């Protein structure tokens, strides 16, 4: 009981003197205190959150699907038969049984493309979140720990990037560098790290005043060790939650950029470009855009459910015990 009480008070105290942006992060679920938690009972906790578990399962299935895509696809996802242009799904009139979900505007098997598309969407999500996290967390911890000019420079830079409208920014990057997978990742990460930076910085600021950090200092640990072994493990869970929540929105951003004509843009199928190039067919061949849309929706939904669940699981305040 005492544990929870102190953490609640702490959270309150820190809530009130946060800037709105930190509040935002906070309410996205991001102020987590992990005092009763280790990985062992993490999975047990996951079991008690059926939605999160479901999310996790779906995400894992998707990842497997992406990895084994070449083995799973019934047809060549890259080239189609022009004669099969906008072929409806098999259960529709005019559909062919071997093309379960029908074909797209170039007669390519939709199912195969959706399966393959998982690769791009998932790697876009994973890689850009991973890169943003690594950059944001290292700079954030350093800024929060050392303060001073380092903090000042990075915080101002972060402000600057935040003031840039994200889509315009990404669009600008894509226009400048041209479409392509890595360019897309670059565009997404260039600003994506800022949120992680702010989170890590804010958490470090509060973590730094914790007595166990003082204790480590008193026992003669160096700054780097304190950052790595005392502070980092305590903020990483917040980061994971933010990461999952952000992953969904980054995958959607990829789709949005495709809509503006600047996605991954090769013949490699990506859900974003499938949805956006298929949207013209919405009225006569809804499946071309809608089915990849469903695939995306399900993935983002699962990631969000997982993220939300993680937030609850990792936040002892939300637990009944």
């Amino acid at each position: 009981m005492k544990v929870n009480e102190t953490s609640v008070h702490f959270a309150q105290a820190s809530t009130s003197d946060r800037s709105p942006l930190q509040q935002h992060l906070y309410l996205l679920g991001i102020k987590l205190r992990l005092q009763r938690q280790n990985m062992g009972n993490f999975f047990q906790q996951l079991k008690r959150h059926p939605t999160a578990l479901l999310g996790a399962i779906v995400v894992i299935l998707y990842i497997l699907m992406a990895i084994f895509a070449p083995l799973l696809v019934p047809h060549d996802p890259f080239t189609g038969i022009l004669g099969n242009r906008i072929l409806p799904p098999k259960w529709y009139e005019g559909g062919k049984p071997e093309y379960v979900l029908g074909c797209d505007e170039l007669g390519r098997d939709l199912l195969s493309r959706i399966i393959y598309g998982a690769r791009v969407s998932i790697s876009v999500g994973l890689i850009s979140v991973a890169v943003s996290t690594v950059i944001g967390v290292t700079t954030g911890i350093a800024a929060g720990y050392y303060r001073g000019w380092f903090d000042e420079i990075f915080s101002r830079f972060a402000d600057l990037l935040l003031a840039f409208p994200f889509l315009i920014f990404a669009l600008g990057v894509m226009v400048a560098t041209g479409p392509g997978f890595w360019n897309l990742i670059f565009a997404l990460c260039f600003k994506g790290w800022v949120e992680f930076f702010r989170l890590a910085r804010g958490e470090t600021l509060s973590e730094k005043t914790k007595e166990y950090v003082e204790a480590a200092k008193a026992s003669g640990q160096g700054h780097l060790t304190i950052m790595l072994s005392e502070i980092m493990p305590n903020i990483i869970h917040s980061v994971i939650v933010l990461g999952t929540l952000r992953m969904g929105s980054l995958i959607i951003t990829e789709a949005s950029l495709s809509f503006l004509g600047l996605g991954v843009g090769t013949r490699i199928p990506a859900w974003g470009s499938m949805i956006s190039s298929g949207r013209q067919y919405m009225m006569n061949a809804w499946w071309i855009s809608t089915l990849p849309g469903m695939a995306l929706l399900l993935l983002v939904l699962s990631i969000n459910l997982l993220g939300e669940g993680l937030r609850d699981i990792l936040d002892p305040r939300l637990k009944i015990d």
Partner: protein
Amino acid sequence: MRLARILERILVAIPVMLGVAIVVFFFMRLSPGDPVDLMMGEAGSVSPREMEALAREFRLDEPLHMQLYHFLTDLLRGDLGNSFVKRKPVARLVREHLPATIELAFGALIISLVIAIPIGIISAVKQHSILDRVSMAGAFLGISMPAFWMGIVLILVFSVFWHVFPSHGRLPFAVGLKTITGFYTIDSILTGNWSALASTLKHLFLPSLTLGAGTAATVARMTRSSMLEVLRQDYIVLARAKGLTEYAVVVKHALRNALIPTVTIVALQIGTFLGGNMIVETVFGWPGLGRLVVDAIQRRDFPLVQGAVIVYALTFVAANLLADIIYTFVNPKIEL
């Protein structure tokens, strides 16, 4: 004191704005593509003299640092330059398009509030109920759907099949609204043109819904979780111990506290709404700043992109400041 703080926020914003200006300047100049060449299109002939003349006119023949110098000195004088393509002062273009964007942003804001806050409250009060689960599931759907896709679906359903909302645009000319401020809702109220108001609101609805859906979802979830947290607080127990009815406890004592974070996040969302609506603007043929910028980026209309991004950044900073000010009003603990 309060004024000093506001002043300070503004002062701090200046270097940020300057940074934004410089970044967007280099961004545009260093990205490939020649505005003059693009302007000439893929037809007809173009004389090299003509291209040179235009390049000179646009000051593109000068070295980069001189261009930057001109840009910054003009900027400090409040001059955003002339659009290459539209041949108009950028400031005017922005002024013409900003009201549409702001109106859409506010539409989205209001829709997300009207939907999200009650849902959040009810979900929290009736935690684990069917309603809670359904609305939270809906909220998740809201944030998991690409906006353009949702927009098209809404158009198909509400305009094509049911004919209840118009498919595009801001206000048909036939309504005959006299514009004063550029905000059609305000203008129609000012001129007492109620049919224009009705039409404006109808046009505003689908785009606002599309733009606001994601935020509504976020706000609903936030309201719910902050409400849940507030309901656990000691002062709620005290309110009950005073003998208040459950309704008074929730609406009077809990709600205002639960809204403290929500309101600030919502105010902050204005910035996102302003900067993130080009997709909605494109889908709904909404004549706002977002579409203007996307177009300008594609045409390498440097001054227009620069000007618009600076205005975006300004509105973002202003929205942030506004968020902070609102925050001080809902939360007595904070002195700005």
